[in-house]
């Protein structure tokens, strides 16, 4: 089932930070939203979530850092139960075990507060929580930039293998075209509050048309190596 | 912000020049005119000895505000030095200073001040000593906190790396951070000192009659509060207005600082 939104926009203190934008996301899509900092990526992500929620669609959000997702005074178990309650999903110990194992954090003590876990584990916990309601779309806002590379790569791999075959679409918001190019099949480039270019990953890397896309492509990785 | 600072300035002017514009001698006794109501001659009325209340209030500003200023500045100096010693003097110094601070904090200010001023004998000197001894701990805590956080700040590290002398680092990197925060604390302590001085005066342990201090005036007025309640209103009102303006100035300064540190 396709998710569609239209006329998303945002104005902050008199300045338009997101121009009217419409999107369609098909079931199971892997989409990347790339752009420089301040281009309006996160704003679009937030507007998309709010609009879809208002439509009654299942959509989940993973912010950049676990600090933006978890209350330091509340236990992880509290967060989990709260998320279930918010989704009106009946408590289900099996599902919890399944999701935590899928992200390889089943061994963690849920009675602890977030800061009792490493940041990598916290971020995986946030991702696991996002999966509770089997949402139609997960918006990942720079999900790896606060993590060490090894853990970041593992986390992305675990999430992808869990989502394979389910209908859940992902929207990966990132400033790093190199990362997005490895992870998604379709790319959207943002610049100054507008989506200026959208194409399949391969097409965009091979022939970027706009200036923003060209400069992102030119600096997308550090080295060309045989691998 | 500006209007509050202007008001603050007006108080300083009153404290300094008030006695010059006072219409009467504050200690001129005029028994036939005792406890008279406000009027053209006695603007706010007279007290039990027939002295002009307005003149006494104006002269009293020197005692109430001047002593409070003195006390709060002494506290500022002691507290800042103690706090910086704790922050920069190593773990032993930190422990000693902070436990001393805790010990002094354990005595409620006014209780300690009453005891000190009471035992040393009532008078201006013991009043200043009592309020200074009980009024430095908050500065120490703030100065220590800032000192500790600055010591690990990137730009202080860079300054050390650039070979700046400790004195230059103190001047350019510590002072600009300490000064505004300590000024905010100082406004609060200044206001507290005004309240403390008048409270001790009211209890009879502070500035002694016939000197016109606001708390002492209130103590005098209390005896006649049933017959001439207005006489009691004026000194209290003077304290309230002063403390209010100083606190508002402190709030405005704190907000301005928050704005500067985080313009978003």
């Amino acid at each position: 089932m396709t998710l569609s939104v239209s006329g998303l926009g945002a104005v902050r203190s008199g300045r338009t930070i997101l121009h009217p934008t419409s999107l369609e996301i098909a079931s199971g899509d892997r989409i990347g939203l790339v752009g420089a900092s301040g281009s309006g990526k996160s704003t679009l992500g937030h507007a998309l979530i709010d609009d879809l929620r208002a439509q009654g669609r299942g959509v989940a959000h993973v912010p950049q850092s676990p600090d933006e997702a978890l209350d330091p005074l509340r236990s992880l178990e509290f967060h989990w139960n709260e998320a279930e309650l918010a989704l009106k999903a009946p408590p289900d110990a099996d599902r919890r075990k399944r999701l935590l194992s899928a992200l390889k954090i089943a061994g963690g003590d849920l009675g602890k507060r977030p800061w009792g876990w490493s940041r990598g584990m916290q971020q995986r916990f946030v991702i696991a929580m996002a999966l509770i309601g089997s949402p139609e779309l997960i918006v990942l806002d720079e999900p790896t930039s606060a993590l060490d590379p090894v853990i970041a790569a593992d986390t992305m791999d675990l999430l992808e293998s869990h989502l394979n075959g389910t209908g859940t679409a992902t929207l990966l918001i990132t400033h790093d075209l190199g990362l997005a190019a490895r992870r998604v099949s379709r790319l959207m480039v943002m610049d100054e509050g507008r989506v200026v270019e959208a194409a399949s990953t391969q097409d965009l890397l091979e022939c970027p048309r706009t200036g923003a896309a060209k400069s992102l492509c030119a600096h997308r990785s550090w080295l060309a190596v045989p691998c | 912000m500006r209007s509050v600072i202007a008001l603050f300035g007006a108080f300083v002017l009153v404290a300094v020049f008030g006695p010059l514009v006072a219409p009467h001698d504050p200690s001129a006794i005029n028994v036939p005119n005792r406890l008279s109501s406000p009027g053209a001659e006695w603007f706010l009325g007279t007290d039990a000895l027939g002295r002009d209340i307005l003149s006494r209030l104006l002269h009293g500003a020197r005692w109430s505000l001047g002593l409070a200023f003195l006390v709060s500045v002494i506290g500022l100096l002691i507290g800042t030095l103690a706090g910086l010693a704790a922050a920069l003097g190593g773990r032993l110094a930190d422990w000693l200073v902070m436990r001393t601070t805790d010990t002094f904090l354990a005595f409620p200010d006014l209780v300690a001040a009453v005891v000190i001023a009471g035992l040393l004998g009532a008078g201006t000197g013991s009043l200043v000593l009592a309020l200074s001894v009980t009024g430095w701990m908050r500065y120490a805590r703030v100065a220590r906190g800032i000192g500790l956080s600055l010591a690990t700040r990137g730009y202080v590290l860079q300054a050390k790396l650039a070979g700046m002398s400790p004195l230059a680092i103190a001047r350019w990197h510590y002072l600009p951070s300490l000064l505004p925060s300590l000024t905010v604390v100082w406004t609060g302590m200044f206001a507290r000192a005004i309240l403390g001085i008048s409270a001790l005066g009211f209890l009879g342990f502070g500035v002694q009659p016939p000197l016109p201090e606001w708390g002492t005036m209130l103590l005098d007025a209390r005896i006649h509060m049933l017959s001439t309640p207005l006489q009691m209103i004026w000194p209290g009102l003077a304290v309230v207005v002063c403390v209010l303006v100083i606190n508002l100035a402190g709030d405005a300064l704190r907000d301005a600082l928050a704005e500067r540190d985080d313009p978003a």
Partner: protein
Amino acid sequence: MLRVESVSVRRGRTMTLEDVSLSLEPGRTLAVVGESGAGKSTLIAAVLGFLRPWRGEISWAGAPVRDCAPSLVMQEPRAAFNPTLTLRRSVMEPVAARRPPPLDRMERLCRGLELTHDLLDRRPLEVSIGQAQRLGLLRALIAAPPLVLFDEPLSALDAFTQKRTARLIADLQAEEGFAALIVTHDLGYACAYADDIAVLRSGRIEELTRPKDFIASPRTAYGRKLRDAAVALGAFERAA
């Protein structure tokens, strides 16, 4: 030249650095790669003399490192600048004692770093992160130090600015000839710009090799993991 000889640093009962040996010649770049908690910051603090090693020696040309007036580029670009002072004041701090101030040199560095003069009259919160980091480079280089340490110099920047800034650093190094010790978790950056790579893990150097060799065949299991993660996160591009 910089010599770090079997240095160990203790914090309480744990070793934050254990038997670390490195060396670095003028004009060369050494990248120390590792995860958070591996001991990278401890290494920087020890080299700069803010931490005394429990064992081992650290020296520059046979003398204490601080004698050569090394400089440091920090991870958080704005942290290097006092928020109450203008950037010009902070930038000139390392040469504050010099009469006359080296204005020509500053002019040249500003051109190289693409910095305009009006930026220098602003305060740290009034410039962008990318600009702040270039100002940090200006500050680090103004006194012409023979050794510059970089503590995660790019991680606060976005992917595009990272690459641009890395290029600027390399160009300035070619011109000035300083030795660069770069501490980073970004293997892509390290491999693209360093002459040598040291893999630091739990306070120990696990591998010390050339970038090309490291990418082709890491010698340790951990090195392989680091490389594979960098590939999975898009640091490298497949060569045709």
